């Protein structure tokens, strides 16, 4: 628009500069363009060229200024004041050199004696390739990030089924899908990409079905809302499966070509080898070939496998196809819609109808994309066939102890409809899909001054891969990869403190936490976790002797630390979002990105990346020192440029090669950072049209993937509807496995019950152990979109949107209990009770109550004033949840983790509660408007400057638009 004559010159653009970087306020990692003037931020906006957010930005990104200005920012390293108690929050400043010397000495001693005594766990970080390498070089198996209490069920179910997964490793084909089903997205992963996608499908007239007990956020704009009972999604999915099977509405061509559905499974109940795949001498799985009417290799291109049927193998062993087992399982009466409706709270007609709607889209509204491509066997194909049904699932599936099998059930629905990596279906994002599963086994070693033999986290495929000792006891502090949680691919961060304090399986020396609020909202059972962090032995030594916390802000966990290492904000650091880690790829492009410092440091803090590389040199990790034993890298930037995991493969995939002209693979480029900065801080490698679909069986794609180091071979990735891996564990539970087997009865039971090679529905573990009469409500929580995946609720703009959470419940239930809107109620579980303020609503499953998570804060933390709503009225549901299952201990006193029995995923959403109104005379008047329990106020940190009572931020004085007097007088009142 042409500027009107009377308007002033607004911005002095000559004083401004634009710099690009990557946001870090959640896991989306959007590209941002920052406008600076006078070293202040004028504006943070979405980068229109960026593959993730395409120019848009969420409420958090738009509040970045207030994150940067937070009074809770840590400003210097801190040491717990000698003679004071841990948790009392008394600290004295310490120099970086002294802090790092102290830490190096302590860690060097651990490394030289018993490396596993360092437990290093990281929170919502995006640098696991570096922290994992660091732990591996240190030689401790006790490392993991926060995935164990976040989304490992989703990642594991996807990777063990189809080689990619929901969210980070895959996305719905927003451009082509005609039917989109969203399961259990508690306003969580992902943020902007989902919003962009929902807009696209709404524009295009696709149907959007939302399955969620609560109708907020995305659910509000769904064409159909399914108010499912929490934790029963598996039953819903498998009941729809029955409808599809009953009507023969399956993509048999897809199942035969791309899955292990036709593979022959040994049918020898009660005998060794039962349920394993029939294999030839080369170890190849077998099918029943209809051309030769006999057994043939399942990997051959020339066979016509029978999808169904029972046969006899040449050796006389009875076998049947995996798909036949599937048919038998899901045609059982328990999965009939009428039976399922009683479990899920969804009427049988809707279960039938939605299944048949999906079938209509898949089979009557098929789309094709005419592109020549080469399949896994080298055969030219002329088109991609799309069955445009897609799905996305997240926290509401993940945070139940049946989440792994439920997520597999959802994937299975898509597989049967033939919607995997096809146009309109669920697409993988490079470097995925991977072979099932990636050939990385979790490390077991613990040798002094020796790096681990592999990464601490990997993908078990058999009991031999467990990280257990000769007595079958866990070797890891979190008991990941033990009989408690055999496929705990992200570790069990929520068990670390509890286990370490109990000395079960052993004591540790140092707990090092990065960006994880384990003394507050990231732990179950918060109050008792605080006690554990303070717990001492009879000799006065802390049960966890030394706690190191690295964070940018004054979190509750800072108070419980012995050494605090202050991190930078995301606008003050170099960083990589690497293809070796959790890249930002899109469905049609491999992408990675960097962060660069936008603002100069104004306090004595260092980025954790920099500190990691520094410590690695001081501790003389082999990969970090040169032949003279001196640190090899000058710092983080130098490390990123020059470290190669394999020849030509480094942290950044773009502008490799000496001259920066190579992509994905190439020798180090000394100017790589500059190349990224010149290209708006991201790298995008677009796939060719023939590489964009059916990648599990697409040679054009697989050859690229192999060259780039994403996969080890160009072999077809055969989708596993039937998981032989799970069956091996189940056989171990049955005492029929030729290898490690559990000795304890409860472990045997778990393996027999939950390691079903086909997904099934079972009630979540805690729910099954809780009296439903006594605790009639399901209790779950969500994170509001404007705080999703962030630890930023101290942000002064965002907290104006919400500074207090409520317990939301259905109006009819509130009325029946005599609880009014804004009334107070006791919420009680098997683990304890809390007092919370209630809001009544309509759009919630009537048997369910919920709240916004992590709004509550401890008084004195996060730079908030003592009367802040977060510490007065805000409440955590965490107090009601225990990290151990309720009820009787197992034989031998073993208390089982409150987690998924397959993956060890924290079962946050299995909670059941009872609710009673707070009586008028029950509590003193002074406490009637306060949440409970209450905690001692955390002390202010040294040199803390409280926020002012008024904040008026601007990067330049406002340019007022003056209304002329002539205008006032000539136009009168107008």
């Amino acid at each position, binding site marked *: 628009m042409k500027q009107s004559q009377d308007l002033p010159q607004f911005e002095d653009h000559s004083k401004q500069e634009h710099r690009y970087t990557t946001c870090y306020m959640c896991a989306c990692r959007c590209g941002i363009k920052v406008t600076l003037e006078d070293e202040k931020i004028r504006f943070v906006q979405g980068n229109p060229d960026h593959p993730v957010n395409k120019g848009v930005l969420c409420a958090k990104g738009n509040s970045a200024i207030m994150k940067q200005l937070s009074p809770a920012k840590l400003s210097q390293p801190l040491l717990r004041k000698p003679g004071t108690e841990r948790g009392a929050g008394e600290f004295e400043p310490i120099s970086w050199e002294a802090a790092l010397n102290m830490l190096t000495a302590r860690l060097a001693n651990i490394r030289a004696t018993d490396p596993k005594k360092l437990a290093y766990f990281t929170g919502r970080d995006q640098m696991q390739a570096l922290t994992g390498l660091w732990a591996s070089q240190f030689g401790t198996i006790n490392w993991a990030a926060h995935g164990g209490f976040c989304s490992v069920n989703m990642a594991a179910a996807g990777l063990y089924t189809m080689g990619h997964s929901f969210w980070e490793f895959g996305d719905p084909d927003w451009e082509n899908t005609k039917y989109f089903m969203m399961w259990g997205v508690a306003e969580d992963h992902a943020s902007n990409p989902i919003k962009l996608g929902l807009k696209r499908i709404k524009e295009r007239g696709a149907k959007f079905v939302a399955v969620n007990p609560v109708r*907020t956020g995305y659910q509000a704009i769904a064409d159909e809302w399914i108010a499912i009972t929490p934790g029963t999604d598996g039953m819903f999915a498998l009941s729809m499966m029955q409808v599809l099977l009953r009507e023969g509405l399956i993509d048999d061509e897809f199942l035969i070509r791309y899955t292990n559905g036709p593979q022959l499974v040994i049918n020898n109940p009660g005998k060794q080898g039962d349920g394993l795949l029939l294999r030839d001498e080369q170890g190849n799985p077998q099918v029943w070939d209809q051309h030769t009417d006999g057994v043939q290799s399942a990997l051959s291109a020339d066979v016509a496998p029978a999808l169904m049927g029972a046969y006899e193998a040449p050796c006389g062993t009875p076998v049947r196809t995996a798909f036949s087992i599937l048919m038998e399982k899901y045609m059982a009466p328990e999965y009939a819609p009428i039976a399922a409706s009683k479990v899920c709270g969804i009427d049988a007609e809707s279960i039938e109808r939605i299944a048949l709607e999906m079938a209509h889209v898949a089979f009557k509204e098929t789309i094709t994309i005419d592109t020549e491509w080469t399949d896994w066997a080298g055969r030219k194909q002329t088109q991609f066939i799309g069955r445009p049904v897609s799905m996305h699932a997240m926290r509401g599936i993940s945070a139940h102890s049946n989440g792994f099998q439920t997520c597999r059930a959802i994937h299975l629905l898509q597989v049967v409809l033939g919607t995997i990596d096809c146009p309109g279906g669920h697409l993988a994002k490079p470097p995925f899909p991977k072979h099932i599963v990636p050939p990385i086994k979790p490390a077991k070693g613990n040798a002094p001054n020796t790096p681990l033999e592999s990464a601490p986290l990997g993908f078990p495929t058999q009991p031999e891969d467990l990280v257990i000792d000769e007595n079958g006891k866990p070797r890891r502090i979190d008991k990941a990869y033990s009989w408690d949680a055999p496929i705990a691919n992200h570790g069990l961060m929520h068990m670390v403190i509890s286990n370490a304090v109990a000395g079960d399986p052993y004591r540790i020396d140092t707990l090092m936490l990065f960006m994880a609020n384990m003394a507050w909202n990231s732990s179950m059972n918060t109050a008792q976790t605080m006690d554990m962090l303070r717990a001492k032995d009879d000799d006065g030594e802390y049960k966890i002797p030394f706690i190191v916390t690295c964070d940018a802000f004054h979190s509750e966990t800072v108070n419980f630390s012995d050494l605090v290492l202050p991190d930078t904000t995301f606008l003050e650091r170099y960083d990589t979002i690497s293809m070796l880690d959790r890249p930002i790829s899109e469905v049609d492009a491999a992408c990675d990105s960097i962060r660069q410092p936008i603002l100069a440091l104004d306090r004595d803090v260092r980025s954790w990346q920099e500190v990691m590389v520094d410590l690695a040199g001081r501790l003389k990790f082999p990969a970090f020192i040169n032949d003279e034993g001196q640190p090899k890298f000058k710092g983080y930037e130098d490390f990123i440029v020059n470290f190669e995991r394999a020849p030509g493969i480094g942290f950044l995939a773009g502008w490799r090669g000496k001259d920066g002209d190579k992509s994905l693979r190439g020798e180090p480029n000394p100017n790589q950072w500059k190349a990224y900065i010149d290209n708006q801080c991201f790298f995008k490698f677009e796939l060719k049209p023939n590489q964009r679909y059916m990648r599990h069986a697409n040679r054009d794609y697989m050859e690229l993937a192999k060259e780039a180091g994403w996969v080890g071979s160009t072999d077809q990735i055969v989708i596993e509807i039937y998981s032989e891996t799970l069956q091996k564990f189940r056989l171990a539970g049955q005492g029929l496995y030729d290898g490690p087997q559990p000795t304890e009865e409860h472990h045997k039971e778990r393996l027999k019950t939950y390691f079903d090679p086909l997904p099934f529905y079972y009630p979540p573990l805690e729910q099954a152990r809780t009296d439903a009469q006594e605790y009639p409500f399901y209790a779950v929580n969500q994170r509001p979109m404007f705080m999703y995946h962030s630890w930023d609720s101290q942000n002064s703009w965002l907290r104006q949107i919400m500074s207090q959470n409520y317990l939301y419940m259905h109006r009819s239930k509130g009325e029946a209990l005599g609880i009014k809107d804004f009334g107070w109620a006791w919420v009680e579980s098997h683990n304890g009770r809390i007092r919370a303020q209630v809001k009544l609503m309509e759009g919630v499953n009537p048997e369910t109550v919920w709240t916004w998570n992590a709004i509550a804060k401890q008084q004195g933390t996060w730079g908030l004033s003592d009367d802040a709503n977060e510490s007065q009225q805000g409440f955590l549901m965490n107090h009601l949840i225990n990290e151990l299952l309720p009820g009787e201990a197992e034989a031998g006193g073993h208390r089982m983790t409150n987690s998924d029995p397959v993956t060890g995923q924290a079962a946050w959403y299995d909670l059941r509660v009872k609710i009673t109104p707070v009586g008028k005379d029950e509590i003193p008047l002074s406490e009637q408007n306060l949440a409970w329990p209450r905690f001692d106020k955390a002390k202010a940190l040294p040199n803390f400057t409280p926020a002012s009572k008024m904040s008026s931020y601007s990067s330049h004085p406002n340019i007022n638009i003056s209304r002329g007097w002539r205008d006032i007088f000539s136009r009168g009142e107008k």
Partner: protein
Amino acid sequence: MKLGLVVDLDTCVGCHACATACKQWNTSGTIGPLSDERPHGKDPSGSWLNRIHSYEVGDSPHSKTVNIPMSCMHCETADCVTVCPTGASYKREEDGIVLIDQDKCMGCNLCSWACPYGARELDPDSGTMKKCTLCVDRIYDEQLPEAERQPACVLTCPTSSRVFGDFDDPDSQVSKLTRERAGQQLMPELGYNPVNTYLPPRNPKQQDSIAVSPMQGVRQLVNRIINR
């Protein structure tokens, strides 16, 4: 010209991105700063030019959740302007944007009482009235890339639920959307003739399903000869 916004209630998920984008741009804009009282204290409260309200319409099981972003409607009959005793509040002749001259505003609040949409907020620090300017300092700034000459809320909206344009131009996107999607004024009965329009939620998509006969019972799947 008659500049204003179209807000699509069919796709607004209530994420508040537009609200904070607005706050961020305008706190350093023509009417900045937009101050915040007790930013880290009890009941933090600041001046915002755009807020999101979430409602439930109807009783369950037939309730519907609706998110409505609210900002100045740049009314054609702008009583907020009529009541201003100092002439600070005015509606521009050339494009219809309602603005407040910060140097002439004395913070008497009359305009906010006259506004039925709650669009005007008194800044707790400056004591002057603040409101949406349609980012007049973006849309007319020829030094910004052309694609960015949009209000901050429109640029940032992750579901593109906000569209900016000239309602006088029948071919503009705002005119077309309003026409084709039956865009509504909010509370037209009050007679302020707001310029901004809201697109109502679309009717839920009706999806065909495969017809089955309940009498057929279990259908037998048969093995077909399909080469791998």
